[in-house]
């Protein structure tokens, strides 16, 4: 499996698509997580993402290893953005390519669910009413 893992200020769906491009694959699944303009009906102005980068990269590599052991995935991308992010901005991109779509969907869902549980990245929400949580 070829893997691209990165944490940086700005990430794009296109760089993930470019990486997973392969004539051997017939199913490419891409998940993009974007900043929502509200949380529980309260307007959100922006998010700030902070990261323990060395450990985050290591935990993302562990997820990639688990994927490799479980599914026949040819290519995989995990990108996470850090810093100030505004509604509509992309915060996370997961992309998976496999011969067929079924396992690509399964692996993609597993990656984003596990990332949210184990990778040391934190978001702070800045609400329109001035509260920060």
């Amino acid at each position: 499996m070829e893997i691209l893992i990165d944490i940086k200020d700005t990430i794009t769906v296109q760089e993930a698509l470019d990486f997973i491009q392969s004539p051997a694959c017939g199913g490419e699944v891409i998940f993009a997580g974007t900043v929502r303009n509200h949380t529980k009906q309260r307007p959100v102005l922006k998010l700030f993402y902070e990261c323990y980068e060395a450990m985050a990269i290591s935990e993302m590599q562990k997820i990639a290893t688990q994927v490799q052991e479980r599914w026949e995935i040819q290519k995989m991308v995990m990108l996470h953005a850090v810093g100030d992010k505004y509604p509509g901005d992309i915060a996370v991109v997961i992309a998976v390519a496999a011969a067929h779509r079924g396992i690509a969907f399964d692996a993609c869902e597993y990656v984003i669910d596990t990332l949210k549980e184990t990778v040391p990245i934190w978001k702070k929400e800045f609400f329109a009413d001035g509260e920060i949580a």
Partner: protein
Amino acid sequence: MGILLFGVAKDITGAAMLEKPAQVRDVAALKAWLYEAYPGLQQLKSMMIAVNRTYAADSQVINEQDEVAVIPPVSGG
């Protein structure tokens, strides 16, 4: 040695790095010391300790050259 703090743990303690007391020699003792020194940390849903960039069990020994970090509930994605 310095202990790294992130996210809300950094906000509660007011520090991105804390000096580990010499008598703290494992993860359980570190957590106990943190909870006592910074009671606000008790409000967290969870508080993990990472040793050398890996989640550590309470029984894990902390050596002076280890990289130790306080990991409040993560919220990436």
